[in-house]
């Protein structure tokens, strides 16, 4: 796993990384293919286990998000306002549609068979990717949001949308005419990332203030009493905390525990049920921009890529590390029970 340059403790560095910041990366649901979107206007497809670049797509502007459809195609969201479909085998892409402003997030819903994109033009759009390209054919609906969309996440039929101004909208994909729930974030500062729990009961929301809130969909008192928030990705220095934004959250597909990555360069793994931190990986050279577990949870892709939280400054080069995941790092620890 050790590469010549990086210490083995960080994982294997992916060769041929993008030449500029990494906005997001995702493992496929079917294999160890990794899709990476970057500020260098490219989307790259890697075979993470073989450490080989398989395909590359250039867009008209920085690419802010990407996702898989299946192992033969994917989608991307770019700052040139386009939503594109990517065909891996032919290395070709076509424009599925456009927003009025940079498209920030893209997610494919297997449950609904639709592609969902969120943009800084304050709308969410749903697309049917089976149609021929051209907005008239593919656009299913446009849903206004209170503010610019920053992050979205899907589980089953639920969609969670986090926008600027700390708004959170929860939709049922079967009825998009209005949000199922409208909430404000439990945290006090700007939302960075939202991810639904794999078991579909709620979502985790992270902000720039070094906190993660664990929320639940069920509005009953009993469920709402379970919600909590915890501090993370902070460094104590000279009596006060340096508070880092938490950029990325990724749930382990098997254990339901989750990893968070922050601008402090650390990746922590948490057990949400027991409210414990399970592990902290060695510090990465720069901010963690994105995290993704492989479908079996054996690999974790870490994008160590400066995210501009301090403006333009000299920074470490952007890199992607693929690390093997050990059970002890991600498995919830059994509770110590009294003898019966």
């Amino acid at each position: 796993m050790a590469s010549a340059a990086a210490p083995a403790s960080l994982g294997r560095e992916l060769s041929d990384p993008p030449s500029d910041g990494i906005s997001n990366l995702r493992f496929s649901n079917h294999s160890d293919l990794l899709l990476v979107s970057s500020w260098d206007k490219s989307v790259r497809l890697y075979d993470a286990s073989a450490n080989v670049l398989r395909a590359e797509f250039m867009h008209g502007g920085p690419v802010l998000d990407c996702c898989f459809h299946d192992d033969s195609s994917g989608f991307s969201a770019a700052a040139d306002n386009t939503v594109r479909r990517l065909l891996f085998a032919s290395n070709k892409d076509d424009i599925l549609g456009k927003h009025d402003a940079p498209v920030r997030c893209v997610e494919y819903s297997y449950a609904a068979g639709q592609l969902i994109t969120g943009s800084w033009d304050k709308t969410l759009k749903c697309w049917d990717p089976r149609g021929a390209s051209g907005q008239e054919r593919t656009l299913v609906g446009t849903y206004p949001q209170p503010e610019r969309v920053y992050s979205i996440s899907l589980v089953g039929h639920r969609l969670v949308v986090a926008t600027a101004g700390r708004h959170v909208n929860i939709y049922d994909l079967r009825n998009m005419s209005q949000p199922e729930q409208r909430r404000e974030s439990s945290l006090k500062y700007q939302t960075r990332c939202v991810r639904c729990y794999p078991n579909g009961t709620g979502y985790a929301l992270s902000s720039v203030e070094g906190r993660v809130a664990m929320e639940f969909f069920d509005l009953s008192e009993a469920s709402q009493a379970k919600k909590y928030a915890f501090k993370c990705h902070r460094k104590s220095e000279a009596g006060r905390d340096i508070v880092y934004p938490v950029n990325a959250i990724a749930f382990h597909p098997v254990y339901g525990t989750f990893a968070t990555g922050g601008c402090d360069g650390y990746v922590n793994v948490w057990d949400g049920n027991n409210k414990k931190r399970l592990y902290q990986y060695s510090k990465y050279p720069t901010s963690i921009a994105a995290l993704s577990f492989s479908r079996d949870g054996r690999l974790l892709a870490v994008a160590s890529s400066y995210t501009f939280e301090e403006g333009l400054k000299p920074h470490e080069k952007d890199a992607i590390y693929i690390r093997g995941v050990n059970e002890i790092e991600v498995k919830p620890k059994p509770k110590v029970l009294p003898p019966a």
Partner: protein
Amino acid sequence: MRDLCRNFQRGSCQYGDRCKFMHAVPQQQQQQRNLNSNNSNFHGFGVQNGFHQQQQQNANPFGFGSKSASQPQQQQPKTNPFGFGVHNNSQFKGTPQQNQFKPFENKWTRGGATRQSDNNPISSNHECTDPEVCKRQIAEDFKQEKPLWILTCYGHAKGAPCDIVGDISYEELRAEAYEHAKRGMNLQSIIEKERNALNSKLAEFQKLLSEPYRMPFNPSLNSQNNQNANPFSMPIQNTGQHNANPFPITTQNNGPVSVSSFSQLGASLNAGFDRSTAPAANTPPLSSFFGSGGNTFAPNTANPSTRGFSGAPSSTFSPPAQSTMFPNSTSQQPSFGFNNLSSTPMFQTTPDVQSSSMSQEENVSTDLSIWLKEKWNPGEIPEEAPPDSVVR
């Protein structure tokens, strides 16, 4: 009859046959009692919440949180010895053999300093009934938890709308900067723009902190306000903006929602800027800040800082000597005026800023002529909202 041997009841007696008490199966009554306690022990944490030994995630996984969610600083509620939901207490109060097992202690571990009290670090259920409490909350937040990222929104009560709006994500800032660079704007201008955005956001935070906090939901308390005489009584959202009807600043309709991210950024930053721009119909001074297409605007950038700030932030910004464009370049990036943000965030100047801005405000608010101008030159824009008298 001799008494029953207690040790034998518990499982073993060291005297064995020699024991002077009776080693016998306990009688009916005692049997009953033992059985009950055994049951409760066996289940560990009881029949009430159905917890079983091997489960991790079912039945009340957040029982620990159920109490603590509503009680701030209460890490391990005493009434909840098993660390679980509130329902199982009655079951075990009467059991005689509680000492047989340890209560489950959920030590909420964290890396770093002792943070045991972090169970619910945000003041839960904060209701904006007392402005002093709100203000204290805000002051505490700013002192303890200033995020590294400055262009953020802020709401002092969780689950409630923002007090300071108009946040920018770093992706938006980066996208805008790339756009400008692509269009040929030089680095210095880009830096200055970003610096302005930061300064004005800092000003907003300072404002929120320094003024007695006005509840967005309770207009009657406006009378408590200081001389800044904010006419706002709008619920939600625009507290920090002193948004009343004459200043219909909403992020939605600021500027056209046009193609480039730049105008979005400009629009949202307009909202974030002090509403002082509203009287000027189409905000000409502000638009020059971001200048569609990046014109020179250098003069006005210095002014906001000389106005009320300690001036420290702007003085430490030194335009970099290099002028290389940063996007798509290799890893060697030119240093940027933002550097001073890295280790000691600009927030650190706030204590000084606060006092000076307070006195500044007094000066400015009495100078009403500024409000009567038709058009402002860059740098003249007052930081605060206009007083009631000039509001039409």
